[in-house]
């Protein structure tokens, strides 16, 4: 059964249209990767699903309910959490408080508690009383993910979580994904690093200029397909 579905989703900033009829589907317990060039509209898609941008109600269905027009807090209350692009930690709050704020709107029992997040990222327990801004970029990304998990979401949206991270940190962060999947949550990741994306995702959507240009199971896609979907040209023409 589809946990989340978008149907002909469109989105605009003022008179500039960023999404043109996007259809994607996320199954229960599935991990999806969304890839695409800069400005393709990936972040816009995430913002639409998470309720930061308002859309037509029926263009986004969650457990078969239309949620397109709901504001962000209502979306969270239904079980969709987001790790936003650029971490967006709260600088006035320390690490622990940043994590605690994550379940402000949704206090349900589940696998994720302060303790289990500290178990997932032990370094955060050490730095729990530091202001979030005093952490390194990687640690901040861990806080952002932990904060997203605190509400025990059924669906976790992650926008470019490896951006600007040292390779060792990227490895650590992606190392946490199997544990998250084990809890039964579905995950959508937006990722530029195709290799990384292909490694963790069950299925991939590729976007270009506000449209989905390719989708399929990771195993079935060739690099050439992906290139074509990315640029609308063949790999060789580019060089």
């Amino acid at each position, binding site marked *: 059964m589809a946990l989340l579905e978008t149907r002909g989703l469109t989105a605009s900033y003022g008179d500039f249209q960023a999404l043109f009829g996007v259809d994607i589907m996320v199954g229960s317990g599935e991990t999806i990767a969304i890839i695409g060039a800069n400005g393709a509209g990936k972040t816009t898609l995430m913002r639409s699903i998470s309720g930061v941008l308002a859309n037509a109600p029926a263009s986004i269905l969650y457990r078969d309910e239309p949620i397109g027009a709901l504001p962000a807090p209502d979306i969270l209350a239904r079980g969709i959490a987001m790790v936003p692009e650029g971490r967006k930690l709260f*600088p*006035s709050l320390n690490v622990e408080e940043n994590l605690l*704020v994550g379940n402000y709107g949704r206090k349900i029992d589940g696998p994720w508690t302060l303790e289990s997040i500290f178990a997932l990222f032990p370094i955060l327990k050490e730095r729990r009383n530091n202001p979030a801004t005093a952490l390194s970029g990687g640690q901040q990304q861990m806080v952002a993910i932990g904060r997203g998990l605190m509400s025990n979401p059924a669906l976790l949206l992650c926008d470019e979580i490896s951006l600007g991270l040292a390779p060792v940190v990227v490895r650590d962060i992606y190392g946490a994904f199997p544990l998250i999947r084990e809890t039964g949550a579905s995950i959508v990741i937006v990722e530029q690093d195709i290799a990384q994306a292909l490694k963790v995702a069950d299925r991939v959507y590729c976007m270009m200029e506000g449209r989905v240009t390719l989708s399929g199971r990771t195993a079935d896609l060739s690099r050439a397909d992906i290139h074509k979907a990315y640029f609308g040209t063949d790999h060789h023409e580019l060089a």
Partner: protein
Amino acid sequence: MNWLDTILQGVLLGGLYALFAAGLSLVFGIMRLVNLAHGDLIVLAAFLILILVTTLGLDPFVAALIAMPLMFAIGWGLQYFLLNRTLGKDILPPLLVTFGLSIVIQNGLLEGFSADSRRVFAGSLESASVNLGPVTAGIMPLMTFFSAVAVIVCLNQLIYRTSVGRAFRATSDDPVTAGLMGIRPQRIFAMATGLAMVVVTIAALYLGTRANFDPTSGPARLIYAFEAVIIGGLGSLWGTLAGGIILGVAQTVGAAINPEWQILAGHLAFLAVLLFKPRGLFPRAVD
């Protein structure tokens, strides 16, 4: 002896300023909202207390207790329906809207209550005083000061110890991301302003019992409230208390030298603090 008294009176006056400023500080700290109508809202609350006292024959303190939830509702509504729409990076829209609001409240009160000056009577408390060895202090000023301290302690507990307080601070940093955490910034802001109005009611109680007020007496003290907030540093409530006391003491000391210098001395103290600490005494790490 005399100097001791001057300092004491200054500190107590500082309590009054801190009380005027505490609500402002809360709103300023959480929403970066420069509320020019704050003084008029204090006067509005004073009129509310006055109505309760005169029509129901209540004790002013009881009246203030009843006025608190009413003012909370007014603050909540004001923020939710009006001020929320002005928030953003630019400080000008809230500045202008609250200036408009200030004019509206003043003239609305003028239409409703005429320009007469009014008082709220606190009975014999008004002239009561205690002897503290070499100096005497009025009961009302002492109560004002301790109310200011109590308000600040409570607000601090709320902001730094509760989940609502965390939501306040998070929303203050970044309302959009706070929304992703399930926080409804609109309501959080409304609640903050509501709370500020509760503090405003307390300030109104002491304003109304201390001296006459009329619909236009709001703005006169607004500048002191702002000074207290800024001396303390944006978002620091204890700083606001310190700011109030610095202002109060500067004024009484200035007046002791020559009454011509009273208000000037307060302003000069403010400028001196900013000269050395452009972000106030206790600035927040991030702005």
